[in-house]
């Protein structure tokens, strides 16, 4: 769902906006909702803006939750939204470890 023409109205605060959705990066439901109202209709865009799902657990816990918040605001079912792009490294890996890549086997 990347249709920029999608009209979802004006953002209005909700009572549970302070609820933390992404624990690693401490991103709240309100922040994600606001991002949707600012025109970010998929998980990749929201993630780039807010870093939700980019912390230690790499979205293993919050991936589904972020998706359902976004889908809820646009009025879609969560399965209609695509998951975040999966790319290496699939587990958090420090750069100095990458620098020691063994390539000659």
């Amino acid at each position, binding site marked *: 769902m990347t249709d920029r023409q999608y009209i979802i109205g004006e953002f209005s605060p909700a009572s549970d906006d302070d*609820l933390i959705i992404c624990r690693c990066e401490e991103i709240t439901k309100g922040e994600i909702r606001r991002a949707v109202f600012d025109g970010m209709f998929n998980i990749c865009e929201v993630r780039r803006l807010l870093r939700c799902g980019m912390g230690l657990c790499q979205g293993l816990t919050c991936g589904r939750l972020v998706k359902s918040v976004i889908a809820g605001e646009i009025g879609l079912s969560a399965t209609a939204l695509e998951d975040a792009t999966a790319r290496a490294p699939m587990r958090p890996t420090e750069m100095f470890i990458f620098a020691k890549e063994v390539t000659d086997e």
Partner: protein
Amino acid sequence: MSFDLMVIGAGPAGLSAAAEAASHGLKVAVFDENALPGGQLFKQIHKFFGSKEHKAKMRGIDIGIELLEETDSLGVKVFLNSPVVGLYKNREIVVRQKETVRHFKADSIIVATGASENLLPFDGWTLPGVMGAGAAQTMMNINRVKPGNRVLMLGSGNVGLVVGFQLLQAGCELVAIADAAPRIGGYGVHASKLTRTGVPFYLSHTIMRAEGRENVTGVVIGQVDENWQHIPDTEKHFEVDTICLAVGLSPSAQLLKMAGCKMSQNGTPVCDKSGETSLYNIFAAGDVSGIEEASSAMIEGRISAAAAAKKLGFISEKSFQKRSGELDAALSELRQGMFAPQNRNAPLEKTDEGFNISKSLLKKGYITEEEISEYPGFKPGAGIRPVIECTQNIPCDPCRDICPKGCIKVENIVSLPVYDENTNCTGCGLCVAACPGQAIFLTDDRPGKVEEGKVAITIPYEFLPLPEKVGPGMAYDRSGAPLCPAYVSKIQESAFLGKTPLVTFVVPKNMAMRARFWKAV
């Protein structure tokens, strides 16, 4: 370094795949991010359902040991502490090992990365003390740490029910099991193990908030209507220090997605019958390809491995057909019954045999006395005999296989067990211990063995400490309500019972079909 087959994940599916492939002569490596192999198997301290070929009535931990012996003896190389951080469609993986990343290649890859727990956000969900049920299980059964003292479980699927029981075994108090759904999601027998110890179920209830400043000190649940909307003034408060969430699992399919496998909308890879994804010689087996029981995962792993062996020319088309035929048959047996994946949302009304499914069992977690008397395993009478309180079609038959006298009939794997009164039950208790659902009891009123007017009831009792012989206590009914004083007349423990001790207690005869649990007073 290169292999014929690389398996990602050393859980039930991955280890089974590795063992199967190695048995066909493939050079196999398994990679796992954890320090110990086995995935979730080693924390499954309960007995599995199924048939002999599915390792029924074995505990997950023992199945894990057996699988590791098999992979060891076949020369499978298992790399631990080795998270696979990248998977590419040319069947190359990137693995982090200590402070380096290394590349490995194989002709075939089986991804068996399992699943991760879903969590649910509510007010206070980030407080220490809120955890996944699986996390609590890891604390208890792997790390030997009690997760808390008073626990509320959200979720009545098999994970919630099984972990709930294990919390009791670890000495925690389980104050309640809540579920937003209107019926208990897991096996009735698992629920009944809890209710007879006094655990209440709150169906159509969800968590409103967790209380506490530094950690959980309480929880409030509230009722929801059929549209999952909160009904005002239905809040219930419990003092707890732990909240366990058993609200489902999500396949850990990120590596497959990264490699470019075609994915379906529910987050699983699109696979053919052998588990091969849209990418050539890259397979998915176990929970990563769809959440099921570990028993199914183990067979799926073997099916994928047999297919890989055939595609790489290690076995002939003919021997592949034979092997995959056996495995497919075993898998389709497990995928029968009212809890099978294809029946997941079907209404539970009647058993295959036409008996009414107990409404009380689905709502409250126990079957009522009126309901239970309908079933073919429930035949009250004189002498010693098994009383089988198995009332849902679940693929499982150890009770039939273990009885040395052939007293119990199970027509096909999902049929309800039938007690044949024309046989000679000797009261050996093997069926009581073998039943993975702990749903078989013995009643004994033989003159000379039991006092006049009394009956001895034998129950499976997987709690410590074991009762003291002739210890005073109370008998409880299926709902966990106290019935009458009862003393313990016998405690049996032996290797044949598979570490399920049997406790026999004596109650007045009119309690024979009511008393189903015993507690010391």
